[in-house]
């Protein structure tokens, strides 16, 4: 597929064309679509800046004057501080384990593509198709028996295991396209396999490691169902679980609820805007396999 890009000298073709009326019409249509698309976001942000009286008297208009008290109240009543810490710890440790286990496992699977290596690769791919609900209850019992409900390690174990198939799949595809000569040179120079991997191969995996981080981080950070089961009611609740409980409690106080939603969505949206190029590339490219 990449061969098509080498043919491309896109610049002359594009530059030759003069802007036409059609283009302005298209621009206006697209902006109109975006405005309609953003209506729920408009409601979210404006209601978060209104007091109850403004919400009942002028719900659709811009907040005048905007109030910011909702944000402080929501921050403390939704315990967003602790929830952010919990989400960050669980996401970061799971990512670290996924990178270590995924890259080393894939290194073996990519370099030993016959016999045992091939069989294990297929076994890992099976995990991408299996819905996690099939093993949900036995796993819940297992985590319960370990005494790991309501703990970080229970969630970290879950995310590392459930996301390993996809992570192994991404890494294996990337390593297969990588010439084995680098590691070979390191081995000839006297490295053992572990050293050849950590010093030579792993640094070469940086692009796919970026994709692995982005896709897994978005999934883990936003996941709701399993943390609800494992952490619900404990002091280790993640952001989505905490927000869900908070909304259930203050259901009719929309200004407060929406301020909580804004604050809860903000961290990942900020990271997204800062890293948008990588995030979009990761989502579009990582899935190509």
């Amino acid at each position, binding site marked *: 597929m990449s061969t098509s890009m080498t043919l491309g000298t896109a610049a002359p073709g594009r530059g030759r064309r003069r802007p036409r009326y059609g283009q302005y019409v298209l621009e206006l249509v697209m902006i109109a679509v975006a405005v309609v698309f953003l209506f729920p976001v408009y409601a979210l942000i404006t209601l978060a800046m209104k007091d109850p009286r403004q919400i009942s008297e002028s*719900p659709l208009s811009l907040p005048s004057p905007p109030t910011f008290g909702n944000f402080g109240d929501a921050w403390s009543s939704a315990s967003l501080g602790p929830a952010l810490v919990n989400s960050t710890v669980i996401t970061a440790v799971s990512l670290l384990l996924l990178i270590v286990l995924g890259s080393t*496992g894939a290194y073996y699977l990519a370099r*030993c593509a016959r016999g045992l290596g091939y069989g294990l690769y297929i076994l890992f791919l099976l995990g991408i198709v*299996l*819905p996690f609900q099939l*093993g*949900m209850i036995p796993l819940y019992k297992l985590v319960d028996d370990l005494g790991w409900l309501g703990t970080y390690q229970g969630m970290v174990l879950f995310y590392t295991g459930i996301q390993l198939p996809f992570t192994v799949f991404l890494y294996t595809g990337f390593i297969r396209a990588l010439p*084995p000569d680098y590691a070979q040179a390191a081995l000839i120079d006297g490295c053992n396999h572990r050293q050849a991997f950590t010093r030579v191969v792993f640094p070469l995996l940086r692009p796919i490691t970026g994709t692995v981080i982005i896709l897994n981080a978005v999934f883990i950070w936003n996941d709701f169902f399993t943390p609800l089961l494992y952490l619900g009611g404990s002091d280790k609740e993640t952001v989505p679980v905490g927000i869900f409980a908070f909304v259930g409690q203050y259901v009719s106080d929309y200004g407060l609820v929406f301020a909580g939603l804004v604050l809860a969505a903000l961290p990942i*949206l900020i990271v997204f805007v800062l890293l948008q190029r990588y995030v979009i590339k990761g989502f579009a490219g990582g899935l*190509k396999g």
Partner: protein
Amino acid sequence: MTSTSEKTVPGAADTAGDGPKAGRGRPVRHRDHTVPPWLFVVPALVVYGIVVLYPSLAGVVYAFTDWSGIGGFSFTGTENFRTLLDDGRALESVGNTLLLTIAVVVVQNGIGLLLALGVHTNIKSRAVLRLIFFAPAVVSPVMIAILWKYVYNPENGAGLNSLLGAVGLGGLRQDWLGDPSLALWSVAAMVVWQYAGYSMVVFLAGLQGVPVELHEAARIDGAGSLQRFRYVTWPLLAPALTINLMLSTIGGLKLFDQVYAATNGGPGTSSETLSTVLYKEAFVYGKFGYSTAVALVLALFVAAVSLVQLRYLRAREVTA
């Protein structure tokens, strides 16, 4: 065990002769030395075994028992599956799951493709538009559902009905989540709103791989823009379409968070899906055996649909 690959394996002997005479070529014997020991895969395999393989196998076994989560259980053969066939709510959930999936797959990818075509032009706002349309996909589905639950509520002043009223479409006002004949479609629309930008991004990556020369050649040959889309762009978008259809189908079949947060299957059982039913059977009614039977049905759906799609869609892919 193939840990023998560390040494010279028999299979390498026939090609090992290439080594000396090929000179710069990659000698196969050396390549075998680069195969890392199988210990590299052990940690991943152990965690994968504990979290996915063992519980899934156990799940298949429990599907044939009357396990209640506490104490022992006995094997009941296919009774859970026969119960499922008589269980109106479970059967309705199978239908709902399929309808929801089809609606999401068709509309999300249709809109995603139109957005991609609109953004893959020279319009000035394309970077901002791409950002706006994709942004909901990185936010937690539960939080999106909480927001839309408000938007759908007819009693709320800044909801969808108020917007319709404000632009003169008051006749379209509905009780979006409260009307049993609408609830499922309202959930579908919410999912489409969140993920249409995701489909757009995958289609955009596909569009960027379509060579400009092909378009120029087709234009010179007198093809209009619709014809160029039909005969140049569309065939080359096949890989992107494969990815999008697979992702949205599997996502649609497994959909839980949004349904749980927006309707919890209601009103009545009108928006119940396989994943909400299996959740309730397990954690509300304590019927763990029956719940894993429902999960097994879901697993078979997902596996069958992904295999069929992959086979059919891969076959129609072409390269530029």
